[in-house]
């Protein structure tokens, strides 16, 4: 597509999560005419349930370049958005309790450093000095000092508000009931609040993307996944970093109000109809057990809340970004599999570059839909880490 646009291009975005709103803002501030359609409210699904991790460590190498580029964006994001999004760059550490892991950890550090990540191995007393509350059983951890966390609900709303400031239109409580096509082009949407015409469509509807894509004869290898998060009551400040663990389902952080937020990939049961999820008892008990084993101060904690995020999980656990072959004006930005929040600034930027300039400034070839069409089994290149 040509970079010289005289009349503003009309872009429709389906999905008011952190990805859709980021894309809306990046497009709107470059002069595109954006209409975002959201079936409920902003951040009402996965983005509203995210643990808010802003992490590069442990990423699949296919998305590592995006994660690293995104961290650079996070540094100035609050200023750019003119909003407080509670971003704290306090580091991320993934610990082990087993000496046997040290060899594999050194290899992981070497591999991720080669990919450009500033990651180090921290052992023994250094580990305890860095993370005073960590269990004495922990022998080492892989540490990235410039990882951190932010508030996903505030961030999504800040993206949305900034997009509206640049002229974007956001339609809440609006369900897409049909997608209109003329040949290989999408021409508009039918919604519960009237038609929306568009020159371009961005599908950023998370777990709801699969059903929408089917209307475009597109089978996305995405299924809904319920991820459980828990929060404790407020406790004295003890933890700065986000803590993960090898062999444990754990993502632990203490937010500024003093509550601990605990995730790590514990399953819940998603319900797309109601946008609610049912927590599982064994997930609650398991999460309490694993988190307090790694961070013993939690033995004195009280559970305050449990919630389920309805995520879109792809068959190879990395997102689907960019074009599809048979439609000329469709961009996918979905299937983030529980780790899209940290990527949201860069994904917004890259999708806006892809649509307005034709080429994103960071290559996304490994993440396009074509990887499924080739029919090749895509091997994972990093251990599965759940930390939203």
């Amino acid at each position: 597509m040509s970079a010289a646009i005289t009349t503003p291009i009309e872009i429709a975005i389906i999905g008011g999560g952190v990805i859709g709103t980021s894309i809306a803002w990046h497009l709107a501030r470059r002069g595109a005419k954006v209409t975002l359609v959201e079936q409920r409210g902003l951040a009402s699904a996965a983005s509203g349930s995210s643990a808010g991790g802003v992490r590069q460590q442990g990423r699949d190498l296919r998305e590592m370049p995006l994660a690293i580029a995104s961290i650079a964006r996070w540094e100035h994001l609050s200023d750019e958005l003119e909003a407080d999004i509670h971003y704290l760059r306090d580091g991320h550490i993934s610990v082990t309790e087993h000496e046997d892991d040290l060899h594999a950890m050194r290899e992981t550090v070497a591999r991720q450093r080669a990919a450009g990540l500033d990651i180090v191995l921290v052992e023994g007393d250094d580990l305890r000095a860095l993370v005073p509350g960590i269990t004495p059983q922990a022998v080492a951890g892989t540490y990235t000092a410039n990882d951190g966390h932010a508030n996903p609900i505030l961030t999504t709303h800040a993206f949305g508000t900034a997009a509206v400031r640049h002229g974007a239109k956001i339609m809440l409580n609006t369900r897409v009931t049909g997608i209109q096509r003329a040949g290989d082009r999408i021409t508009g949407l039918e919604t519960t609040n009237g038609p929306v015409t568009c020159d371009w469509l961005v599908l950023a509807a998370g777990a709801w993307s699969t059903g929408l894509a089917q209307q475009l004869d597109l089978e996305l290898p995405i299924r809904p996944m319920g991820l459980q998060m828990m929060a404790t009551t407020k406790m004295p400040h003890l933890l700065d970093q986000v803590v993960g663990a090898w062999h444990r389902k754990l993502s632990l952080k203490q937010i500024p109000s003093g509550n601990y937020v605990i995730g790590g990939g514990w399953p819940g049961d998603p319900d797309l109809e109601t946008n609610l999820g049912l927590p599982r008892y064994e997930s609650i008990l398991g999460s309490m057990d694993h988190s307090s084993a790694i961070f013993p101060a939690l033995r004195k904690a009280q559970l305050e809340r449990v919630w389920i995020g309805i995520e879109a999980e792809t068959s190879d656990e990395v997102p689907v970004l960019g074009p599809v072959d048979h439609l000329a004006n469709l961009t996918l930005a979905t299937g983030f599999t529980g780790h899209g929040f940290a990527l949201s600034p860069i994904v917004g930027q890259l999708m806006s570059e892809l649509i307005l300039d034709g080429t994103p400034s960071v290559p996304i070839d490994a993440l396009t839909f074509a990887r499924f069409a080739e029919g090749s089994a895509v091997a994972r290149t990093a251990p599965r880490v759940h930390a939203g």
Partner: protein
Amino acid sequence: MSQLERTVDVVVIGAGPAGVAAAIAATRAGAQTILLDEAATPGGHLRWEVADFEELPAVPAILPRSPLAEISVQEVVDSGIEFLGDTAVWGIFPGPLVAAYHAPSDTGYTFRATSVVIATGSADRVWPVKGWELPGFHTERDLLTRLHTELPPAGVRYGIIGGGDAALQVKAAIAYTGGVVAFESVAITKIVIEGDVRIAHIHDEENRADVDVVVQAFGQRIEPVLAIQAGAACTLHVGEAVPSPYLTPDGATTVPGIFVAGEAAGVQGDRWIYAHGERVGRAAANGAEPHPTPEPYVPDPNSFRRPYFPPPRDPSIVIDREQGVTLGEVQKLIDAGAWDINDIRRQTRAGMGSSNTSPALAVIATLLLWRYPHIEDVRLIARPRPPLRDVPFLGYLPETTQTGGSL
């Protein structure tokens, strides 16, 4: 200090008249039954009902209890039902599986049951007014409960919001303690409570008084929150702006094995509550059919579902005291187009506290009903999430974790 698992036929939650009746009926029907309550002894709401005036002693001590409470304790003892007091149920999961915490022994309990009877009665109706977050504000039952354990010195000045039986009972209790009713009003939206560190004055458009305590006496509303958390389909209780589960005459919800009995099911009057408890207890023991899952309730567009209370007006009114959320914050979201109570709750944090039953939820439902009279109930009912009570980690940690590491 560790988790205990128990398998029984019937778990009855709440040992008020409905729960006691249900537990006795279930036991007589041959079911192994356990009766749980947050309080140390059975009796439920009977424990804070004021005794009849002719039963009151001439010299005030603490407010005497109705003798009915002692009768229900005796009934439980005589019938040989296993009663576990000081036990707070914080969630019901598929199975059904009841998660509870027993504070005195610091033990987390997991009950696997065939049937669960929720007999959690009612909670005080409370409606946010200007200044209600100040210390010195009480609801009716909250005040009566206190007067059963400790009498304040004579001469305390009270303001009462509300009328009817609830207000009469509060006035009787205040008179017994030698307190003074300095202010009374039913004008909900016009009340203003003022004070610096605690309540000092109250006024409406006509009257003003210096007071030490304000009591809101609006009676009770049903409290079936555990059934809704367990996934029972519900509709909005007419007028109340609080959810009410669909129930068969046997008290069965749409979730197999989950029953609701007594006040929590909307039954009123101790005799009827007891009778309903008996019927539901028998049904639970015999494994009655669940309520068929209804089509999502869509209100008749010609009917205007006016809620019990008008929505508060002053945007500075705090509608959730625990989370510190004001009416204005919610109103702003609704003005911006939000119309799903779960989205509003998530964004404002109103009603996010551990009890999941903040009056803020009824206020939000009322605001939405006022604005969209024909809104579907699915937009108005906040799905409560566990835990519904405090859950200390320590009660649930396996031994291996407790011996590993140190604090």
